[in-house]
């Protein structure tokens, strides 16, 4: 009887696995922080479009939650697959460094995207916009909405994500230099879990009743925070500003809880990552600029490939976008 179960399992696996072919094709592996959230699904769309355009094979997969241990495991498996390049968005800047360094030693081109990895563990980092631009714009938007003074709080993703921490650093710098009247009373993580972000924001409103604005700086923290403020009946009173996909925020922009959504185009980010990875494999190094398909000429600053400037979405333009 057990043999039938096994045969059944094998048939099942065969039907959903893709056959490996020994071709001279370039093969790229791309790993988000986790799968199953809007933002990374959008990145995947762009990545697959670039792979199709360039005629390369793309393996896109990641853990089911923001678990860096699982990312390390998956990277180990990928390194055995003879990929030409691996692009990963690490959940922790240090935890993947040993594994990525081993990949580099195996002549695999290693890129990071969305968030960086430390310790000389990658060839290039595909950055959505400079950390300074993102951090400063987040603060500027808040100041536009609540004025130059008041208590504010930040709901971030994971306290270890490199990108989120550096954005917060620049937010602090911007506040210190331009809006010293803004006081950050709390910073809370939400671990890429919208339920947790909602809860954490509710708790913030109760613990700090004088709060005038909340930043949700991930695509999951922002809607969670907005929902909490709307359900507490404080839309319009407490400003909510952050980074998220237009689709995630449309309902809050329509009902007025949120005025402005800041992001870049994650579809473009995914697209650019694959373009950069393929260019790195074909040319071994990237020059001072990269011709990235439909994105045109993209700046390469040392070892960072920059997508461009951040983009603002509000009720005037948010309906045009579908990611």
């Amino acid at each position, binding site marked *: *009887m*057990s043999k039938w*179960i*096994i045969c059944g*399992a*094998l048939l099942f*696996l*065969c039907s*959903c*696995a*893709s*056959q*490996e072919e*020994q071709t001279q094709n370039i093969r790229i592996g791309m790993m988000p922080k986790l*799968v*199953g959230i809007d933002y990374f699904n959008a990145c995947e769309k762009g990545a697959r479009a670039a792979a199709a355009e360039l005629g390369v094979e793309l*393996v896109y*997969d*990641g*853990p*089911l*939650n923001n*678990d*860096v*241990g699982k990312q*390390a*495991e*998956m990277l*180990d*498996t*990928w*390194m*055995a*697959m*003879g990929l030409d390049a691996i692009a990963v968005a690490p959940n*922790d800047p*240090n*935890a*993947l*460094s*040993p*594994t990525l360094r*081993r990949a580099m030693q195996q002549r695999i081109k290693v890129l990071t995207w969305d968030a960086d990895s430390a310790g000389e563990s990658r060839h290039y980092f595909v950055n959505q916009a400079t950390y300074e631009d993102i951090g400063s714009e987040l603060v500027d938007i808040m100041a536009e909405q609540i004025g130059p003074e008041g208590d504010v709080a930040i709901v971030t993703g*994971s*306290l*270890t994500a490199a990108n989120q921490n550096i954005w917060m650093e620049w937010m602090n710098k911007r506040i210190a230099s331009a809006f010293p009247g803004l006081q950050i009373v709390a910073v809370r*993580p939400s671990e890429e879990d919208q339920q947790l972000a909602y809860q954490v924001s509710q708790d913030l409103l109760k613990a700090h009743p004088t709060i005038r604005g909340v930043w949700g700086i991930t695509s999951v923290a922002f809607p969670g925070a907005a929902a909490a403020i709307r359900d507490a009946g404080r839309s319009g009173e407490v400003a909510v500003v952050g980074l998220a996909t237009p689709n995630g925020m449309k309902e809050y922009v329509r009902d007025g809880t949120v005025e402005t959504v800041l992001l870049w185009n994650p579809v473009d980010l995914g697209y650019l990552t694959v373009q950069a990875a393929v260019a790195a494999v074909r040319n071994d190094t990237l020059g001072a600029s990269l011709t990235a398909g439909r994105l045109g000429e993209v700046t390469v600053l040392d070892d960072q490939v920059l997508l461009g400037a951040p983009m603002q979405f509000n009720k005037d333009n948010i309906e045009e976008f579908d990611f």
Partner: protein
Amino acid sequence: MKRESGLLLTLIILVAAMSVLSPYFLRTGNLLGLTRHLAEVGIIACAMTCIIATSGIDLSVGSLLGLTSIALGYASLAWNPASGIAIAFATGLVGGLFNGALIAHFALPPLVVTLATMALFRGLAMTISQAQPVSDFAPIFDWIGQGTTAFIPTQLWIWCVVYATSWVLLERTGYGRYLRAIGDNSQAARAATLPVKRVLLSAYAAMGLLCALAGIVYTARVSTARADAGTGLELEVITAVVLGGTSITGGRASLVGTLLGVLILGVVRNGASLAGVPSVWQAIIAGVILIAAAALNYRLTDRGTAH
């Protein structure tokens, strides 16, 4: 031995299938790399087999691994790697003894106790570390987690030693017979003047020590001490043990089965990954395998197959 032969056959068939699905599966590099993670599951599975044999269970293993990881990180940073390792073991021991005392001396149900300590240990780890990981480890950890000894990953050697010791304890000593007797009928065991409390306490304490060992290996592998380390590990371990034929109701234990269970799960996950099956499907596959294993277990015992 019927069950174990069935599992061995399953493993062989799966290995053959995976090598058909992907040409990269049978490469030494891949198989050895696979054992890096399996070692962590395997080490804890040895103790879990003993505990499940007593008709107990330990759901707190993942959280205890996280706690020992943090203990290792902070102690290594404050003093040196040797102290770090010692403190990690001490933490694991205390955690295991805590579980064991509640279960053995206060006769609280293992499921409830370890469910509570699952939350308690994780909470402690988070609070101590304020959710900040600790990186910056001495090179010796690189050797443990990412290095090789005689071409074999170091943690594989560690697992072998733990496995051999556990096998001797479980199959060749009175201790092993006591564990099974307690699982079969703890009242009768007590009446026969078996040292039930001591055996249970020591089983959970040993689990604590092995969680610490796995925590050290994990932390060395990712070079970072994290409070969320080991999340979900208890599910993997228990699946492997149940798949291996150790009855969840106690009284029967098979370390060979556990080993085969760990290998089967590892092969399926690794092979599926190499063949391009997305992660989301792998969770489904793991669940299906556990159900199939439980059903198989039930049918075999139902037929009164002599063990």
